[in-house]
């Protein structure tokens, strides 16, 4: 009896934290999502009424919600491969030498990841500015007209995503570099003896051995793109015309600008379900090639 309880005793602190800060808030949000709670609830709790699934039916009929979901999908679809391939490529190149120059480059690539988002938004805002921005100045030197980096609905998506990619690669490069340390030298030496070239070694030995690191980066990057918030929030505030409004920005605006707490909770439950399903699928796919 005592032995059987011991493992539970050991996991209980972690479990309690998970329940208190992970599961409990989700349950609260689920309950709030069935009410019409808004800011008047603070004046009197009598203003809160149970309205069943009304928030959800309203949500699925809301074109701005679909636009936000569509934007999030687009961001994830292009952003995940971009970040994974870019950081993998940079990590492979950085790993080719342990010289001082290369180690300082590692620090250089990590800088965007640790810079405050406000500073980033200021600098990129100036780079992108239509009238005075550096990018448009450089383009004007070769005779190209002003480009509306953050004002054109289609281009703004790209501009915002570019900043996120730039900012998101740093941490993943470090993860890949760490994983590259774990590739046994013997395999590479044996391959060299067998006459394998650099490309062959990279694609048939190194990348397959990085499988778990790649999987980890893909899962975390996907989740972070699905929760995409910082860059559009500081650069465009979801504009122009909602073109960079991600699902998280939609929720933030509903919840904290319009004070529609019930409605925003319903949206967050939907987003939570989407992220959970996508992550489960990814985990299931991973299990399939476990025997590699």
């Amino acid at each position, binding site marked *: 009896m005592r032995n059987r309880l011991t493992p539970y005793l050991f996991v209980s602190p972690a479990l309690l934290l998970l329940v208190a800060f992970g599961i409990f808030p989700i349950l609260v949000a689920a309950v709030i999502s069935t009410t019409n709670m808004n800011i*008047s609830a603070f004046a009197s709790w009598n203003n809160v009424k149970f309205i069943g699934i009304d928030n959800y039916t309203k949500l699925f009929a809301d074109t701005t919600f679909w636009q936000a979901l569509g934007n999030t999908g687009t961001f994830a679809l292009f952003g995940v491969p971009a970040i994974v391939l870019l950081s993998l490529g940079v990590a492979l190149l950085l790993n080719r030498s342990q010289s001082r120059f290369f180690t300082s480059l590692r620090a250089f690539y990590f800088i965007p990841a640790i810079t405050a988002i406000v500073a980033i938004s200021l600098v990129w805002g100036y780079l992108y500015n239509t009238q005075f921005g550096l990018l448009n100045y450089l383009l004007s030197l070769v005779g190209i007209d*002003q480009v509306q980096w953050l004002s054109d*609905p289609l281009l703004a998506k790209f501009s915002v995503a570019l900043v996120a990619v730039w900012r998101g690669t740093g941490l993943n490069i470090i993860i890949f570099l760490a994983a590259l340390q774990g590739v046994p030298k013997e395999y590479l030496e044996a391959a060299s003896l067998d006459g394998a070239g650099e490309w062959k070694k990279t694609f048939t030995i190194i990348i397959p051995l990085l499988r778990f690191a790649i999987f980890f980066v893909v899962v975390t990057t996907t989740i972070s793109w699905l929760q995409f918030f910082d860059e559009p929030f500081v650069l*465009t505030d979801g504009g122009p*015309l909602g073109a960079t409004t991600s699902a998280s920005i939609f929720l933030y605006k509903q919840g904290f600008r*319009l*004070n529609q707490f019930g409605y925003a909770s319903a949206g967050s439950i939907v987003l939570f379900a989407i992220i959970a399903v996508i992550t489960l699928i990814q985990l299931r796919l991973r299990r399939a090639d476990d025997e590699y």
Partner: protein
Amino acid sequence: MKRTARTAVAVVAIAGLALSLAACSTPAAQEPSGPLTVWVMGDSGANFEKLVAGSGIKVDVVAIPWDSIDAKLTTAVASGKGPDIVQIGLSKLRTFADAGALLPLDDLLVDHPGLATSNFPAGIAGTATSVGGKIVSVPWTSDTRVLFTRTDILAANGIKSPPATWKDLRADAKILAGRGKGQYGYYIPQWDAPLPIEMTWSNGGEVIDSKGNVNFDSKAFQSAVDTYTGLYADGSVPTNSDFDQQQGFVSGVAPMLVSGPYLGKGVTTAAPELAGKWQASPLPSGDGGSVSLFAGSNLGIWFNTDKKQQSLKLLEYVDQPKQQLAWYTMTGELPTASAALADSTLNSDPNVKVYTDQLKTAKVLPLVSNWDGAVGTALLNALNSIVLTGADRKTALEGFFTATKTLTVK
């Protein structure tokens, strides 16, 4: 004799007791000491401390950035820990009141003649800004929108005076945009939700119907949309959302725009060499005259403050015409007290005279819950989708009407 003495003692004792009881029941004596916490919007915190220094009331000023007021409000109301006094932008007044964050002042104002409704223009004090029939704030600063023009550039292009009507404005803007590539005639900030409403008011229309519901489906509004979309169709306004209005005005790229006194102050500071080359003039009129926006902010008392009387005393102090004029000198924010608005020194500046005259007919945005977030955003999205992405006008406007018609001031 002895008896009289005893009676006298009793009388004195009772009188003394009554007096000390009365002293106790004066709320000021019961209120805890310590500074009043005041939430001031924007970056005027230090100025506010300077302003109240002469009142003898200790304050602890917290400057709240305009952007974060919603989040601040939500957390403060939910936790019950707010300031004693809070500055509220007029467009947020209803949201604050709905949250129960503001103390109803109806019964309290009686003892404070300095805060009486009659001291302020009818459009902003008392019932005009009461929510649910209760007065929850007192006027503090005012702000309005007028037309700013670079008279030197207008004159160089054969335009003798700033346009007085929206029709003239559109024609003049087209002439000015014809100065060449990268030159515009007018600037419409893509975030300026009140502008189409000012146009509607000036066309003699309303955005609230007789039942108190939001209703934009009117001829006056359609005519405002004509002006708005027409300026874009003529190529008279820049289409990038990051256009800087002050820079555009100073450089002459966009020599006309509708903005507030802050633009005048900004231009004076940033480009003193332009003095005499620009001016403020009344908002262009439509069929309904020149009716602009009464913006600005009020001051309210937090619902659960334990320093009610001291807070009222402070409000009465800063709402004196003299203090409001001092505030104008410090920050450039216009006063609200009628006596201060009529001050001859204040009005000796011709631009300020334009502001104060415009304020006489200016109107407050309807006190609909979350006007900015709900109506303002939907309005801008509809109009900007027409002018920027070529959306169908009828569909865009119908969508906007449907989205906002359920909102009400009640």
